């Protein structure tokens, strides 16, 4: 007989056989190797009945993973700009540049009836919208893209899209600080109305999170979502009153603007900075309804599919 034909793994088995390291450990001899750090911490109990998760259980595991979310978001933010020499500059520079280009093109080239403080007007709208689109792009594919992690260990899958939202908040805070610093320079007075930025931010985060959570779950089943989101974002910017004041938009576009949850967000940003172009009651109600509705639906979807996503990755 000749021509060695080993079965896969033979070599490793033979190696293992030579090692005399594996005496059976007597059961019951509980040797305390080192004191556990948290003797009083309750041991988590995993109880799965069927594929879906109850909202309470999902919330509990989300709460337990809050530190993980912070770590993941921070690392993601660092990784994004790590290999770039200008690093963080890009996180802020790109939105600023984009806003400036828009402001110049629409006011100087396209001769849009320039509103007062047009640069700040555009910048404020863009700050909000870029945060939204920068999170929704990678956020909608987050669960599939994170399959490396999620096929090997459990954590609530909605952490993955949430991580994209949280990551973009870093850039958002910096851009917002620059925007507010620019306001006095560009002769835009700030006042009490600037506090509108707080509800504006809350609404922005809620709408962004809602879309990210829902689209990332759908994307696991329908991989077209990736392209649909890209196409939608392209159009979305123009049906949001970023470069034009919403005042006298006629007909069909008016209806689209009213139904767009980002209208309320962007209008609030306008109101908080340049002090005009504030949202109507209708758009605020629509924005809040969208945010609440999306979050409710997205939570329901994640409850149903949280422990099933891994099967389809």
């Amino acid at each position, binding site marked *: *007989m000749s021509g060695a034909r080993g079965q896969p793994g033979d070599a490793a088995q033979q190696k293992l056989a030579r090692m005399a*390291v594996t005496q059976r450990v007597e059961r019951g001899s509980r040797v305390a190797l080192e004191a556990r750090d948290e003797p009083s911490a309750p041991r*988590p*109990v995993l109880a*799965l009945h069927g*594929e879906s998760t109850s909202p309470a259980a999902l919330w509990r595991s989300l709460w337990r993973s809050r530190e993980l979310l912070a770590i993941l978001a921070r690392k993601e933010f660092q990784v994004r700009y790590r290999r770039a020499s200008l690093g963080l500059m890009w996180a802020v520079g790109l939105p600023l540049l984009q806003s400036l280009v828009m402001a110049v093109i629409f006011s100087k080239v396209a001769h849009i009836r320039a509103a007062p403080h047009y640069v700040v007007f555009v910048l404020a709208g863009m700050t909000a919208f870029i945060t939204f689109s920068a999170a929704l792009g990678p956020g909608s594919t987050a669960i599939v893209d994170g399959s490396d*992690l999620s096929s090997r*260990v*459990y954590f609530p899958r909605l952490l993955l899209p949430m991580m994209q939202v949280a990551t973009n908040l870093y850039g958002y805070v910096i851009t917002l600080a620059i925007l507010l610093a620019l306001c006095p320079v560009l002769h835009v007075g700030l006042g009490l109305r600037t506090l509108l930025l707080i509800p504006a931010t809350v609404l922005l985060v809620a709408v962004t999170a809602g879309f990210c959570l829902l689209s990332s779950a759908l994307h696991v089943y329908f991989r077209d979502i990736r392209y649909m989101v890209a196409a939608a974002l392209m159009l979305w910017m123009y049906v949001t009153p970023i470069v034009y004041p919403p005042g006298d938009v006629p007909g069909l576009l008016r209806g689209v603007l009213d139904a767009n949850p980002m209208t309320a967000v962007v209008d609030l940003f306008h109101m908080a900075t340049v002090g005009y172009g504030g949202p109507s009651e209708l758009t605020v109600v629509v924005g809040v309804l969208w945010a609440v509705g999306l979050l409710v639906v997205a939570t329901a979807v994640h409850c149903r599919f949280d422990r099933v996503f891994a099967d389809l990755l």
Partner: protein
Amino acid sequence: MSAAIELQGVGKRFAKYVDTPMLVSSALRWRPKTRRDRLWAVRGVDFTVEAGECVGVIGRNGSGKSTLMTMIAGITGPTEGSVTVRGRVAPLIAVGVGFHRELTGRENIYVNGAILGLGRRQIRRRLDAIVAFSGVEDFIDTPVKFYSSGMFVRLGFAVAVHAEPDVLIVDEVLAVGDLAFQVKCFEKMNEIRASGTTVVMVSHHLGVVRRMCERVMLMERGRPRVVAPPEQAIAAFHEVLTEVTDTVVDEVSGLRYEPNVARIETVEILGPDGQRNSHVESGLPMAVRVRATVVQDVEDLVVGLTLLAGDGTTLYSDSTAGFRFGAASAGETVSWDMQFRAQLPTGSYSAVARVDRPDLRTTLAYHPPVSFFVTGRHTVTGVADLEAVVVRHDGDVDGSVSTVVDPSPGALLAPDPR
């Protein structure tokens, strides 16, 4: 002590997607064609693992072992039944516990530790131990995308075991890494078992399962077939391997099993005198005599032999690949002897005979292990008797006269008659 893992009537059904549904195409079609094939990967598993126990799960590829592990790890939920796991779980499923490729080794330790439920301070306290154990000190601040696969596994294993989980799930990852690391892994596994951690391991390395586990569950077509001490479960597994009636393709290795072409009827152990004898003396010739019936005409056969040690470790495996054994026609009885010298120390062994096609990817017949016992020389231990001869030189090594101190029975190396 309450049970660490309780599985009650656990089943997991997968939809066998022919192709992932697309919004447009499924809308255009009268009705979507997918979701028709449903497949129970696991069904009817009732099983309890006590805290501190080490349980092995064995079975053929596709028998549902890994699906069961993903459910115990909480990665996926059961379609029916319930899974209860008490305590923190650290799953080691496939290579790398889930690393972010762009992050450095150190950052990944933090991310991974957080996923496994450790706080920042707890991770910081364990950092040095993890780094030292993984042996990637020099690369700890390098992004893991530049790591070799061995470094990946080592770091993943290091984090998981240092997380001091209550339940450790090991799915076929221990066989990776070099020998030194494997030794370290097994020492660490024994250590964490001694500390009371519950371990569930899936492995195709029956020797490992036998040494580590107290109980073994044999899975067959998604159902537990036998739950027994390792020896019995492994014996049952060998039976399962011979029961197959359809062509089976192992998707990982591409190896196929094609039944109903040839059948091995008997396997006998012959002593030096050519008579049946299951007790053999070390160093003497012996043979494995195989008698097979050919069911369908075959152009050529490859016959093979595998010798296993008592703990299931493969000692030797060889075949006539590359040589012509000869054709056989349907109904014909073919027999052959595989002769060799029993260069083995004292112990019980088993011989496994098989018949393959010359493509070396298709097994036609397989016979469960046949045991034999070797009476070896009393000074020999280990896995093989290489029959070393000890030759003493007079003075330094170039001294002219030498004395044979320990002549072995079949010494090949005669003392140099200078």
